[in-house]
């Protein structure tokens, strides 16, 4: 009887501790999978269209096989590589590959198709045959385009992006509040989150709402990026900015005591300085893959050095990253 009473007490205490624990800030990791899958679908639909159209051109004009077939193979290889990145949830390398390889390959395909068709039109071959071939290609183009449009829903993808941005900014807000509650000066972080909403999220939502077709939606998605990837648009670099400033706040708090205790605070300071200068140099432009990797290396290095200082001052050592 006594054992049961003690067990009930322990269970009640456990329940109370679970219920009173602070909720973990929302981490939008789960949504990354949905976005990657959606982007992969878009990429495959585009490749299906391009390769289908190039096969149709080769069928009408076999001479063009030598110029178009290697491009078809290249695009099929892109599908394999991007599928691998997506299955590994490797967003950074997926994005870098899209920008540095897949996009140029798509442009090459479009240019080769156009110049190939124009070359056949001006080749002096039988005009009726050429005209019939062109009509056939137009028809094939239209049917492939219809298939592509029903293959990928740009508006659904845009809603995934908007939800992701919104969840992400809520998470940054929760993390900032957590620091504020512990007495840190978080005014810069609060301004950062507010600016991200007004400069990226709001115009993106408005743009998507007013877009009339999938091309318009995709254009707007390429105009407002909370992180990176807008080649001709506004890139806010939110994650890198937030983490660099957050760690700078921690460094400012630890520094006087670390110096007093004879510990090195210059190493994390240098890493954060490098990261900060890199981010400032980007402005609102898209950051290249190597620059992003170098910046995150500096941020992670500063975090590790700061944790070492924390441990040297007697803090907990259990850092699991």
């Amino acid at each position, binding site marked *: 009887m006594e054992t049961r009473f003690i067990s009930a007490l322990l269970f009640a205490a456990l329940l109370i501790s679970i219920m009173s624990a602070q909720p973990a800030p929302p*981490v939008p*990791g789960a*949504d*990354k999978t949905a*976005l*990657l899958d959606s*982007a992969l679908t*878009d990429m495959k639909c*585009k490749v299906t*269209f*391009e390769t289908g*159209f190039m096969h149709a051109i080769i069928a009408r004009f076999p001479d063009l096989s030598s110029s178009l077939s290697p491009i078809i193979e290249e695009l099929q290889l892109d599908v394999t590589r991007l599928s691998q990145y997506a299955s590994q949830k490797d*967003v*950074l390398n*997926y*994005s870098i590959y*899209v920008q540095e390889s897949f*996009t140029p390959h*798509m442009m090459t*395909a*479009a240019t080769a*198709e*156009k110049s190939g068709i124009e070359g056949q039109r001006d080749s002096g071959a039988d005009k009726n045959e050429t005209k019939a071939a*062109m009509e056939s*290609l137009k028809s094939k*183009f*239209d049917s492939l385009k219809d298939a592509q449009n029903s293959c990928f829903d740009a508006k659904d993808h845009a809603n995934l*992006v908007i939800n992701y941005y919104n969840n*992400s900014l809520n*998470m940054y807000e929760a*993390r900032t509040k957590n620091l504020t509650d*512990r007495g*840190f000066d978080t005014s810069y972080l609060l301004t950062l989150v507010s600016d991200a909403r007004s400069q990226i999220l709001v115009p993106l939502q408005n743009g998507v709402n007013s877009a009339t077709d999938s091309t318009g939606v*995709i254009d707007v*998605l*390429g105009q407002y990026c909370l*992180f*990176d990837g*807008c080649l001709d648009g506004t890139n806010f670099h*939110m*994650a890198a900015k937030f*983490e660099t400033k957050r*760690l700078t706040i*921690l460094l400012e*708090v630890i520094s*006087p*005591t670390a110096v*007093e*205790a004879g510990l090195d605070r210059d190493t994390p300071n240098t890493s954060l300085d490098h990261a900060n200068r890199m981010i400032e140099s980007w402005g609102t432009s898209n950051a290249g893959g190597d620059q992003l990797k170098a910046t*995150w290396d500096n*941020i*992670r290095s500063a*975090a590790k050095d*700061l944790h070492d200082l*924390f441990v040297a*001052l007697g803090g*907990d050592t*259990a*850092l*699991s990253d």
Partner: protein
Amino acid sequence: MALLAMCFVGVFMLGCVTSQNGQPNLTQNVTTNVTTLNQTQNITTNVSTSNVTKNVSAIISKLRVSDFLVIDDSMPNLLVSSGTSQRPQ
């Protein structure tokens, strides 16, 4: 026996003279000053250590281990916005 007594008296006298010269007192003073200096240093060190300890405690209580975890939730634009083919004319 008399010689032994004289020797004893001699040693006693020498001790008195040495004492009157003040040599032992000088040694005592030096030792005391060194001790005082050490004590002063110790007090100063203890006061500094105490301040650092207080500061460290304040800092440590303000920070969490999770503060040193870096979260990169970057989600770049993954769509291709250019490079699509044109309809044949």
